[in-house]
């Protein structure tokens, strides 16, 4: 299933013949089955990063900025994973920003007003109940949208356009437009920040587990192919993939650990714990932020759903040929309902991240996020004509969008001009993709 989007590149690899032809680079990509399209995106991202780094005089590629970038990307990245499935089935969801706003407000009211009066202030269960409440509300909203689209036959564009207005209005209605703050102490951890990070040791633990998982996955895949006597990748290619994967993971951990607590917070921490203030300051690593871990977790789960489960297979089959899927006996309408329900739940997760980060639920939360989410999915290679897209691509797309924005902020570019650039980049990215696809046919 994952092959759908990058089929053209690994064709030759699967039909492996004794002699490989082409130049060494082409041979390398064929053997490792690395998706060149995805690689192009990584390349574009690196160009953006290095470009901003030079333009800002060395401000961009710092642990601090990269760490912030990762936290800022988390919310949209979470929603983009769901948007992939929506767009793959030739639908669209314009309401994600408003659902984020509404579920955020629900969670805010639950934890700041309703639950404390019931359980007492700072009760340890508050954050769980609030989060669960938000997830349920998000899921119900998505289910409602999906039902109207699948069973009443209203186009998703219209249903979710209505949803955009309805849920934004509902967000206002809940508190008559008032901002709800502050959030629960534990809930706030989901927003990142100094407390919402897991520190150096745990970051290394996560990194090492990730590396082991990569190795296990590659060994397992090879073992399976051996069992059925399918052509396998050359062994050196497997090593390259393992090395590359571990390098990226451990590199990211190292950067996250290289960003230290701000000096004031570190000083307060030292005073509170009776640690003598050392010469040159106390260096405490932030480590990976919790929202980033959440986004990565969502990405892994969604990739699993999209590629390893029947549901995911049906999503792509419906996107490729709705009639064929129907004739094959797939309950296409229920699949549609499930996709939108899932999208609603993901909006609630994104809402948790963004309200926790802001430490408030406002009625403007998530405005324009639908556009960033759709843009992320599309830049990430999701085809609007349906049937094609990857979760990882969409998350990378979200990172590209956020990198552009945060780079422009560092450069001190005005908001109106930022939007112009983002808009132009979106159109250009899709155009380049169209050219790429036309050529690779």
């Amino acid at each position, binding site marked *: *299933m994952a092959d*759908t989007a990058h*089929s053209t590149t690994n*064709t030759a690899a*699967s039909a492996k013949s004794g002699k490989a032809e082409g130049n060494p680079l082409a041979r390398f990509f064929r053997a490792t089955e690395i998706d060149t399209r995805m690689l192009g995106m990584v390349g574009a991202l690196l160009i953006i990063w290095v470009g901003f780094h030079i333009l800002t005089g060395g401000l961009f590629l710092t642990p601090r900025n990269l760490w912030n970038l990762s936290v800022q990307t988390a919310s949209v990245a979470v929603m983009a994973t769901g948007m992939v499935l929506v767009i793959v089935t030739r639908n669209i969801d314009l309401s994600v920003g408003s659902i984020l706003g509404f579920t955020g407000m629900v969670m805010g009211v639950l934890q700041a007003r309703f639950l404390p009066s019931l359980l007492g202030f700072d009760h340890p269960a508050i954050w769980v109940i609030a989060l669960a409440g938000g997830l349920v509300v998000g899921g119900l909203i998505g289910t409602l949208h999906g039902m109207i689209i699948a069973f009443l036959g209203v186009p998703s564009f219209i249903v979710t356009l209505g949803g955009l207005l309805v849920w934004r209005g509902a967000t206002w209605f809940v508190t008559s437009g008032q901002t709800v703050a502050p959030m629960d102490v534990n809930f706030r951890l989901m927003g990142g920040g100094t407390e919402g990070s897991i520190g150096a040791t745990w970051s290394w633990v996560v990194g090492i587990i990730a590396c082991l998982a990569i190795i296990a996955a590659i060994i397992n895949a090879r073992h399976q192919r051996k069992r*059925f006597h399918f052509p396998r990748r050359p062994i050196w290619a497997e090593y390259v993939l393992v090395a590359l994967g571990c390098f990226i993971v451990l590199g990211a951990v190292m950067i996250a650990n290289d960003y230290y607590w701000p000096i004031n917070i570190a000083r307060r921490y030292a005073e509170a714990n009776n640690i003598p203030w050392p010469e040159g300051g106390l260096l405490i690593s932030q480590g990976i932020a919790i929202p980033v871990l959440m986004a990565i977790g969502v990405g892994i789960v969604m990739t699993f759903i999209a590629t390893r489960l029947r549901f995911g297979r049906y999503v792509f089959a419906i996107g*490729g040929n709705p009639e064929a899927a129907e*004739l094959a006996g797939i309950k296409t309408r229920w699949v549609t309902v499930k996709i939108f329900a899932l999208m609603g739940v993901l909006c609630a997760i994104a809402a948790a991240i963004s309200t926790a980060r802001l430490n408030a639920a406002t009625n403007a939360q998530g405005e324009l996020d639908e556009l960033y989410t759709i843009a992320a999915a599309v830049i990430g290679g999701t085809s609007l004509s349906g049937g094609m897209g990857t979760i990882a691509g969409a998350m990378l797309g979200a990172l590209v969008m956020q990198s552009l924005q945060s780079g422009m902020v560092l450069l001190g570019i005005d908001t109106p001009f930022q939007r112009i650039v983002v808009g132009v980049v979106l159109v250009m990215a899709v155009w380049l993709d169209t050219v790429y696809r036309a050529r690779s046919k």
Partner: protein
Amino acid sequence: MTDQTTALVEMKNISISFGGIHAVENASIDLFPGEVVALLGHNGAGKSTLIKILSGAYRRDAGDILINGEDADIRNPRDAKKYGIETIYQTLAVADNVDAAANLYLGRELQTKWGTLDDVAMEANTREVMGRLNPNFKRFKEPVKALSGGQRQSVAIARAILFDARILIMDEPTAALGPQETAQVGDLIKQLKREGIGIFLISHDIHDVFDLADRVFVMKNGKVVGHARTGDVTKDEVLGMIILGKVPPGAVPGPGAMKSA
């Protein structure tokens, strides 16, 4: 093929209309094990509609469907598959964007004990079935979009026989194919016939199917003109049935037959 055995499929007095237009009116056809029955008629004669009722894509307004002499309740494609009815559609109903294995198992994926897709097992079976059907087929990892018409057709056929179909419906199976691929499909039909599978061939071109079929049913304006053994009639006579609705002496007239003067 012999009249003593029960029919594999018997569709009796089937009618369906769309918005007041009688697409199929009082049509009856039957099919025996190991038999190839061609369903002929112009475009719009109602043959595809009739057969879509059997495959579960449409629901009939009136009439009965009997499978092995027993009443069959077919409301959707899933029901039809339960009775061993597999359909290969004119439009090559494959999901273009996924690979051959995904298409073969679409709607009936193999799962591991953890409920995940067992892709390797599916690919292994796909390789085996495709190897039997079309030994030249090598592009297992590519989306079906990248394949030629004949290769796509062999995917569609493999999809049908993979699940032990007893009744195979082929709607214009060779319409999208070149001469060589058409011959391949012909060989395949003979092979399936030997295995005792009953096959409906639907076509508007008599030359495609006359040599393959044991019997022909001809439809015109939603009604059955008549049916005949291919041994008892000539191609020209069948052509007369298709164009004029004129029933030759070797054929059994149906409700749609031209009233003889």
